[in-house]
């Protein structure tokens, strides 16, 4: 990890609105076919209006509280903290309805879609968590939902497919390319081109064309805002020394960081070693935005490989690329073995079975505390993005 940047200098204005072109520094934008530009503009317009409308905010807040179970708890991980010689606080997105932070974003977008007069949600999904969240919101608001999912993921995540179908969603197998998440994104985008009239594309992370990376971060900032308030009660210094979250596309991290970007907290995003767009990627354009992307030396997109299906994404949200470039956030990687060990360790020490995605953040904290990279006594806020139920059969196979 690098030294702490001169936070005061750069933090002002961080994680505010992107430029009118949807840029975070040199990243972001709206690299979509001309066919989709008006649809993206319509989403942007609608989001700006809605986000400034107290009635919309009130509606969303009511759903987040009365339906999704917010605020989620902040749990001091006493036993693990003791073992590691730090103070570790867990922001419990695993307790949110449907089992991860994905619901925060999806409720926001689904309400927005309804407000725009759309009757159908389109979504891509990898592990199925975003697909389940989308199917859930569609059921709740009486909309239709179509979820694109790679054929390989469908086979790996049969239970989530069934959950989506029970919720009334149509799950469309994607057989192109690597038949995983990135191909589902392509396919959802392709489908959207032909369905913009009545359909809203509900993107699952801080990715895609403007305004999605910004909008999804805004819908997820509830994580960071809540955690900020909760830390103020829980920590003598009010603000933790470190704020840690796993990064696939980067939505739970973005939402978390947004609550702390204006503080002295060091922000750490943890990527899967096999899908580390920040560490191993190069600047490129994928799925409508410019960011760091895993690609070969020809510019062909590489497949990401992680034990956590939700981190199997070759890109990273553009704002993360920007925060990384600025040095305001630091991006690190952990390997599958550490991650699986971290799931087990958290289970045994705190009684929490977290998602493999979330375990990336846990694994880094364990490693950094044990190596001394995290100084003894450090206070750490970690966003536990989801629960591990969906991963049990994968873990059983590994066991």
């Amino acid at each position, binding site marked *: 990890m690098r030294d702490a940047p001169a936070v005061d200098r750069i933090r002002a204005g961080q994680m505010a609105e992107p430029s009118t072109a949807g840029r975070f520094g040199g990243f972001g934008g709206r690299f979509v076919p001309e066919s989709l*530009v008006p649809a993206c503009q319509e989403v942007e317009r609608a989001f700006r209006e809605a986000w400034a409308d107290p009635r919309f905010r009130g509606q969303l807040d009511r759903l987040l509280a009365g339906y999704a179970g917010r605020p989620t708890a902040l749990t001091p991980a006493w036993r693990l903290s003791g073992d590691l010689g730090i103070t570790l606080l867990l922001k419990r997105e695993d307790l949110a309805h449907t089992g991860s932070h994905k619901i925060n974003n999806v409720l926001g977008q689904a309400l927005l879609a309804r407000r725009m007069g759309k009757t159908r949600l389109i979504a891509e999904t990898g592990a199925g968590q975003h697909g389940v969240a989308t199917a859930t919101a569609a059921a709740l608001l009486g909309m239709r939902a179509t979820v694109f999912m790679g054929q390989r993921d469908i086979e790996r995540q049969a239970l989530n497919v069934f959950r989506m179908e029970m919720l009334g969603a149509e799950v469309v197998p994607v057989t192109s390319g690597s038949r995983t998440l990135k191909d589902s994104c392509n396919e959802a985008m392709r489908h959207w081109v032909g369905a913009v009239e009545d359909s809203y594309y509900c993107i699952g992370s801080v990715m895609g064309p403007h305004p999605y990376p910004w909008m999804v971060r805004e819908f997820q900032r509830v994580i960071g805002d809540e955690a900020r308030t909760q830390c103020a009660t829980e920590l003598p210094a009010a603000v933790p020394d470190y704020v840690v979250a796993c990064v696939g596309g980067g939505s739970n991290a973005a939402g978390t960081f947004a609550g702390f970007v204006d503080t002295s907290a060091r922000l750490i995003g943890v990527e899967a070693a096999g899908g580390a767009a920040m560490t191993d990627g190069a600047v490129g354009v994928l799925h409508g935005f410019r960011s760091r992307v895993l690609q070969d030396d020809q*510019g062909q997109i590489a497949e990401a490989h992680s034990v956590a299906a939700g981190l199997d994404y070759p890109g990273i949200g553009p704002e993360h690329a920007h925060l990384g470039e600025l040095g305001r956030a630091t991006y690190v990687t952990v390997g599958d073995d550490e991650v699986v060990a971290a799931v087990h360790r958290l289970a045994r020490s705190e009684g929490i079975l977290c998602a493999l995605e979330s375990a990336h953040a846990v694994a880094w904290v364990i490693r950094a505390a044990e190596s001394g990279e995290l100084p003894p006594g450090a206070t750490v806020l970690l966003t536990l993005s989801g629960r591990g139920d969906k991963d049990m059969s994968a873990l059983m196979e590994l066991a």
Partner: protein
Amino acid sequence: MTLETHLRAVREGGRTALVPYVTGGITESWTDLLAAYEAAGADAIEIGLPFSDPMLDGVTIQEASDRSLARGTTVESILSDLAGISVGIPLIAMTYANLALRDGFCARLRAAGVVALVVPDVPLDEVSDLERSAAAAGVELVLLAAPSTPPAKLPEIATRSRGFLYAISRMGTTGEAGELAESATVLADAIRNATDLPVLVGFGVSTPAHAVHAARHADGVVVASTLMRALLDGATPSEVGARVAAMRTALDTMAP
């Protein structure tokens, strides 16, 4: 002579521009298609530089791209294949932003004799960088308009497009179609209203009849998926060329 001058000349000659497509590197002998297309009366040829994640392509071009990439095709290999042959009509590259925005890309195209470039995932609002490097390299950057593009935006797209203006026939991806979409002619008419830059209609132009229909509203057609489908299904270059020739004949004999 620029592509634009060429296409204006085609128009002024009372002829409908016919631009068939091939996915570069789809077969070992893919460049044979260039000769076949030329022989069949094409006015220019669009060469797809395959990308792993072709967001605006339907199943046929996806399959063609995958097949080509699986053969080990790279931008380099396609451009060096071109170095070995000579074609008498303009070559237009078509690819996606992640390849097109790489350093030196446009210059390499130009060096290989490619005169123009179409990048479907770089819309007007994002075009500046690419516009600059294309201009610097002497490559004409063709912009696209879609049925959803507001008419008020067409003049700016037309002003900044080079070579021609690509009219996306329908709200959808590339791919064969039963009928030419109504939206194709509506869009082509709107573009003609806004500019005298040549307008070519693409996406779903699958039959001579489609081409003839489109030609009543536009200056030419781009024909892609139907040709790649035939090739993927085993047609020889000359059989694929015959399809282009059939379109040529239909266009040339079309009722005025």
